[in-house]
């Protein structure tokens, strides 16, 4: 345990800060094509500035930043008020890294550059109506017909499907296999005939995700990444890319929100009472814990330990805490918090429910912590 400081890191921080200060775009549109254009333009700008793919290896055009540099970048990004990667998120954090680990040379040279320079974005096609938390039970079919896979079925909760050019698509290619076996990971073409995308409105009132319907959609077999029927393995290989730095910006944003509520409550005529202060102090200590949990997971990353199931502890903590923080604003600020003008507490509150659901619900994360961190038995068996 020690403080990590060096002249190189300090100068890297300054470099990040200067560039971000001059280039971070403001007023990201909430949804629609304007949002897509905004996200892609910001990616293109980062590419020109030499910051695209901060954690991608340099041989694939990334910045190849060390764990500490990534941490600094994300800290400065949050402090500069940088926008979410939005429509570029899947491409940068999942599809691209998967391609780097499992793709062949032709696939890498076709897809990776267009991600980094912000010309093409991706969505993820994993979840299905009958395969949510139980992802391995997915049914969407891929049948080999000549040089193509013919896709039939549906995918759901596909974030920004209506805005994406490509899709990392997990389909069942061996109907005789079950669970994790017999799946294939392919590059889905969002322009292919037979694919229909129906946006779904969230409780926050925005159309950020969609359901995809595949009716004899033909995807060339050369789009298979990894081996046919080995898709589960392909989908899981990106884990090594995550070094705990991905959540730094969210953590800083949440801490800022708590400070903002503290200030707002204290500025009320008569100031804050003891009950309010107790609630605020609890939340403040929890966002500090989130920072320390994140620091611990980055520390593990620094020592090159393969990321383990402990990451679920940070994710669970964040998912639950963010909802408490956003809900507290209503308890503490009263009717002022109801209006969408200004800081827009309703939008933050309604949107934040996704963190305890998407990418693994809190309940699934508790199972994973119980079984894979604490070594409790799987189960229960039917009694």
């Amino acid at each position, binding site marked *: *345990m*020690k*403080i*990590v*400081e060096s002249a190189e*890191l300090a100068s890297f921080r300054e470099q990040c800060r200067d560039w971000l200060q001059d280039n971070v775009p403001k007023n990201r549109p909430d949804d629609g094509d304007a949002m897509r254009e905004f996200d892609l333009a910001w990616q293109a700008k980062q590419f020109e500035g030499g910051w695209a793919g901060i954690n991608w290896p340099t041989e694939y055009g990334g910045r190849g930043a060390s764990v*500490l540099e990534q*941490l*600094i970048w994300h800290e400065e990004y949050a402090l500069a008020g940088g926008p979410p990667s939005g429509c570029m998120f899947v491409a940068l954090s999942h599809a691209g890294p998967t391609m780097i680990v499992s793709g062949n040379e032709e696939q890498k040279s076709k897809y990776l550059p267009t991600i980094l320079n912000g010309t093409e974005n991706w969505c993820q096609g994993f979840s299905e109506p009958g395969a949510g938390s139980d992802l391995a039970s997915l049914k969407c079919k891929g049948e080999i017909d000549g040089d193509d896979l013919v896709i039939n079925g549906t995918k759901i909760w596909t974030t920004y499907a209506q805005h994406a050019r490509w899709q990392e698509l997990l389909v069942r290619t061996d109907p005789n296999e079950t669970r994790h076996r017999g799946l294939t990971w392919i590059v889905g073409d969002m322009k292919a005939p037979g694919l229909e995308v129906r946006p779904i409105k969230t409780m926050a009132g925005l159309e950020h995700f969609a359901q995809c319907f595949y009716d004899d959609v033909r995807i060339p077999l050369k789009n298979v990444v990894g081996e046919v029927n080995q898709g589960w393995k392909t989908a899981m290989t990106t884990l090594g890319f995550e070094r705990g730095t991905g959540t730094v910006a969210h953590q800083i944003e949440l801490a800022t929100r708590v400070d903002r509520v*503290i200030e707002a409550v*204290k500025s009320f005529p008569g100031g*804050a009472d*003891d009950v309010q*202060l*107790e609630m*605020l*102090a*609890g939340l*403040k*200590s*929890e966002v*500090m*814990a*989130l*920072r*320390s*949990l994140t*620091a*611990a997971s980055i*520390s*593990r990353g*620094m*020592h090159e330990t393969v990321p383990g199931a*402990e990451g679920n*502890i940070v994710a*669970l*903590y964040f998912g639950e805490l963010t909802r408490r923080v956003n809900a507290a604003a209503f308890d503490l600020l009263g009717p002022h918090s109801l209006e969408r003008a200004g800081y827009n507490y309703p939008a933050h509150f309604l949107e934040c429910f996704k963190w305890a659901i998407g990418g693994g619900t809190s*309940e699934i*994360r*508790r*199972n994973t*912590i*119980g*079984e894979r*961190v*604490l*070594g*409790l*038995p*799987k*189960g*229960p*068996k039917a*009694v």
Partner: protein
Amino acid sequence: MIVDLIPDEDQSAIEDTIVSFLADVLPVERLRDAKAHGGAAEAEVWGQICELGLFGLGLPEDQGGLGLGLPEEALVARALGRNLVSPGVLAQLCAPHLATDEATRDALISGEARATFGIADGYVLDGEGAEWIVVFGPGGASLRARSDLSLAATDGGLDHTMTFERIEGGAGNAQPALRLEVLIAAYLTGIAQATTDMAVDYAKQREQFGQPIGAFQAIKHSCADMATRASAADTQTLFAATVFGAGMDDAVEAAAARTLAKRASFENAKANIQTHGGMGFTDECDAHLFLKRAMVMDMLGSDARARRAALTA
């Protein structure tokens, strides 16, 4: 500020030494025997404890210490908490920092003079044999000679494995004691971790409905929440210890550590009792010892009012 929260080789070695010593010499089971209570078990092996060289860990070498810092002390305090070691040992780690003359400091570092904790207008804990009392009062702590305090014996208190002597006054000239706040948080974090381990072990062994109860989500999720609370308290406490004195707001860092460590130790100790079911409610099962100790130790140092003032400043 970037911190590396993974203990380095030397830090791990210090922790391993104390953890294996306590496992051998002061296991929690010792407290099932009343003869070990009130710090008696620690007094019996005092010479061996002193040989570990813990008490000057965080003092500069020119003051007779080892020149290490609060992170190393926090690892020791956490280990003490896990084994419910008498608060006197933790006080002995703190006392040399508060000593105002060299002779006292040296005697405390060597263990020749023993210390324990007290609360002004409250109680001295496990005071038998302690010449020096680290007394918490408004604004921090002061090191008082036992002979200068007005003490009266009691019939005991919440934690039946400890002794409580009533003090009248005793605050003295209290100095800010943020370092002690972090170490109390570490002790409480040790309790939060030990109770998690105890509940998890039991959940793996105890069978009902034909399977280990840890297979049921009601128990599994409770264990996951225990681990999460312990992790939050632990990482924040180690963070506060690591950045201590380096220009961040130590008062806020320490207050967060105490707040989280209190919550984790109380909630986990209660969840551990619940996981053990009927056994958990018995005197025979060690689960209750952790809850009682956590509740007593949390009375030391800052109170909720002081912490919320720091956290919302």
